[in-house]
């Protein structure tokens, strides 16, 4: 290792293989043969743990001067290889840059290190009467910077919009090591970095708008007999002047799996409606829910069931125990298309003899994220590769309905033509060239697909391979 680096970070940088290997994946389990075939070099050459912006800048400067890729990493809790190297390089673990740096109660803003975890931030703010406005469903571990670099939609987005709209200021280290303050109006602007997969800069500080901690919370589950009524109810309540803090969807199969694990779980197609705020807001919400249930023929489940599901909101992956691997496709779809989407998923499941389950977050009356998953076994070799191909079929169902994959990272790059228009993609590539002319920051992500995975080939390949799922997929107990 270069002396310069060891002097800079002392024992917080390593080239030890056994340390580096732990930074070589995220939630996604990718077979070695696939990494080899796609020439993915996922183990970084070095891992660095800077503790302040200056150290990040010095690392970036060094990498820039040497032509070495750098990969920013928060908690590594996504599944798109957003923070996993594909061309080795230096992984910069930003977890150490955290903590509340300033709480400005007058402006209703908090400034944090980008490696700050969401749940911990919310807990700390609540002790002072404040709360974050929205957060990801992986809040116990996801970092502020990490979620910003994803698309930043999650719990609370219905009430407060995407994270990018709540950010007031960023401190960013650009690929050449320049430290820059970025605002909504600056050039580059916050919107450049939001959802950019860490390909434009290393975010080191974030100033966020916050909200008063709610006095009261109310969490209800509505059980519907059919998805069409549920989606109409969701669109209706999302349009209310007193709209909920959060709206979640759970397919009936989602809870089948939980029952299989021994958890008590509700029946039916479920709409979770969460109100937070003052007494008036939550009581008003309860009246809206009663009206909704009457209009759309839903049953309001006992309060404790709603509260219990709310407490489980960070634990959607529990079903992986039945896997032992979970494969999933996460997409944007229209709320009004939910019923058609679920019908298509059911037909696909029937053809493939595969049981899918879904959950989603309604972010406004028009659109929602949809996470559809199924069991697999990463130790199965060919069977696992076939199972991976099924995600392509699920994405295609969403695309057929005008949707597209959520987030890009590496694995969704074959869907770039569905995610962005040609004009949008050209604009993104122009930004990349402007800020990272050497292409060293998190290369291989977001703008182009691996040379062996052009969209037409990927689409054809996943379609063909997934035909075998009927024979190789996990069988469900009836």
């Amino acid at each position, binding site marked *: 290792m270069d002396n310069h680096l060891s002097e800079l970070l002392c024992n*917080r940088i*390593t080239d030890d293989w056994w340390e580096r290997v732990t930074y070589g994946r995220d939630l996604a389990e990718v077979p070695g043969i696939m990494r080899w075939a796609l020439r993915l070099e996922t183990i970084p050459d070095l891992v660095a743990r800077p503790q302040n912006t200056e150290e990040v800048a010095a690392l970036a400067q060094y990498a820039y001067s040497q032509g070495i890729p750098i990969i920013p990493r928060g908690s590594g809790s996504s599944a798109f290889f957003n923070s996993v190297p594909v061309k080795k390089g230096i992984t910069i673990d930003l977890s*150490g840059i955290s903590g509340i740096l300033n709480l400005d109660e007058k402006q209703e803003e908090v400034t944090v290190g980008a490696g700050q975890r969401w749940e911990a931030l919310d807990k700390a703010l609540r002790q002072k009467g404040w709360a974050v406005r929205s957060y990801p469903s992986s809040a116990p571990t996801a970092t502020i910077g990490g979620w910003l670099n994803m698309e930043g939609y999650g719990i609370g987005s219905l009430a407060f919009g995407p994270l990018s709209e709540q950010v007031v200021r960023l401190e960013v280290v650009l690929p050449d090591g320049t430290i820059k303050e970025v605002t909504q109006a600056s050039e580059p602007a916050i919107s450049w970095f939001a959802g950019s997969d860490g390909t434009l800069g290393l975010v080191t500080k974030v100033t966020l708008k916050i909200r008063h901690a709610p006095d009261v919370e109310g969490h209800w589950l509505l059980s519907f007999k059919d998805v069409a009524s549920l989606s109409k109810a969701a669109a209706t309540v999302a349009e209310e002047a007193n709209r909920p803090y959060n709206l979640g969807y759970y397919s009936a199969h989602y809870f089948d799996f939980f029952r299989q694990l021994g958890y008590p779980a509700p029946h039916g197609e479920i709409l979770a409606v969460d109100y937070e705020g003052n007494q008036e807001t939550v009581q008003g919400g309860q009246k809206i829910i009663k009206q909704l249930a009457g209009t759309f023929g839903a049953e309001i489940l006992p309060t404790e069931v709603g509260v219990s599901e709310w407490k489980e909101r960070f634990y959607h992956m529990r079903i*992986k125990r039945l896997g032992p691997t979970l494969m999933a496709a996460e997409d944007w779809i229209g709320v009004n298309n939910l019923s058609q989407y679920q019908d298509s998923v059911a037909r696909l499941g029937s053809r493939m003899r595969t049981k899918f389950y879904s959950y989603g977050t309604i972010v406004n009356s028009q659109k929602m994220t949809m996470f559809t998953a199924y069991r697999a076994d990463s130790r199965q070799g060919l069977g696992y590769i076939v199972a991976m191909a099924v995600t392509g079929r699920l994405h295609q169902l969403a695309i057929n309905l005008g949707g597209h994959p959520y987030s890009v990272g590496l694995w969704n790059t074959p869907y770039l033509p569905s995610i962005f228009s040609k004009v949008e993609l050209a604009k993104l590539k122009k930004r990349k060239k402007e800020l990272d002319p050497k292409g060293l920051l998190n290369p291989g992500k977001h703008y182009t697909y691996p040379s062996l995975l052009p969209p037409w080939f990927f689409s054809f390949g996943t379609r063909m391979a997934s035909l075998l799922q009927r024979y190789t997929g996990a069988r469900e107990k009836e």
Partner: protein
Amino acid sequence: MDKPFFYEGLNEETTICGRCGYCRDVCPAYEVGGWESFSPRGKMALVQAANEQEYPQKLIDRVYQCTLCGACREVCHLNIDTRQMWLDLRQRIAKSGKAPEVMYSLRDTVRDKGNISGEEQSSRLLWSENLDEVPEGLNGKKNPEVLYFLGCVSSLFPAAYSIPQSMVKIMTKVGVNFTTMGAEEMCCGFPLMAAGLTDDIKKLAEENIARIEELSPSCIVMSCPSCLHTWKHEYPRLLNRELPFPVLHSSQYLLKLRQEGRLKLKEKEQIVTYHDPCDLGRNSGIYDEPRQLITSVPGVKLVEMERNRENSLCCGGGGNLEMTDKELAANISDLKVNMIKETGAQTVVTGCQQCKRTMSGAVRKAKARVRVQDLTEFIVSMLDD
């Protein structure tokens, strides 16, 4: 519903692990060590990257650089019994002869002497020599109401002597008919389990139980949560039978005395915080009784630490960590002291001699103005004259 935990084998569970990282952010070893490899998910990544027959030194180091606190299990997305996994890994490593040398020495000491200190067993009653009055039948009395099982630390380490002394004073004052096993008490086997060297535990269990059966107490009371956990959870499994007598932690027994009106306490205004020992809380499910006992003292205000109950931060003293990495253990203790200080409490009470010892050292080092007491010490100071 109680959360179920699963452990279906190392290969199965490391495959099931989703790498979500929830475990990472509650792990004291990771918080201090900083590298992903310290975290539970990092260790699972190392297991998967390693050849099962030959674990790399990095994995061996990290498996023993763990307090076995079980915080990772509480937050695990997939309900993996991670604590069981670390114990399984320690057993595999120890069996291969690659555990830290000090673990094998510990096993030999327990095998030779019957305790972890290496002292002669006759030293197990030295703590009682400082009592104002040594109660009659302190050692080996038959048919007592209570058999007080002290554990190696309380019996043999002078810094912990005040815990059995306090417990005995309380029981004497209340008029409990009690006894101890004296020199015949054997190590419960917990330190061997933490070392990964489990072969001798069954024998220790059999000897301890046989002796107690001779004395025939109505119940056994322990002030050591690790002994308690071993007795209540490991002995029945190892011996394939239920214990013939109830086993209680001192907090449970003292609360019972208090509720029966036998234990009378005076009023004293003070702010107290309570540290949940990992083997008492997370690993034995005893959270409420210590709190009820503390708050039963008139004038006492209990304030909780930022992390408490299931999410309590380990004091750094568990898992034999001090034997393998003293610095890491001390740095974890420093985190604990910071958390204690933030409560503004004058006293931190715990229910474990090891936690008391670890926190006392860290409090001294930090020059913090906080008193560290075991529950027995706290209660004895509140006895109504």
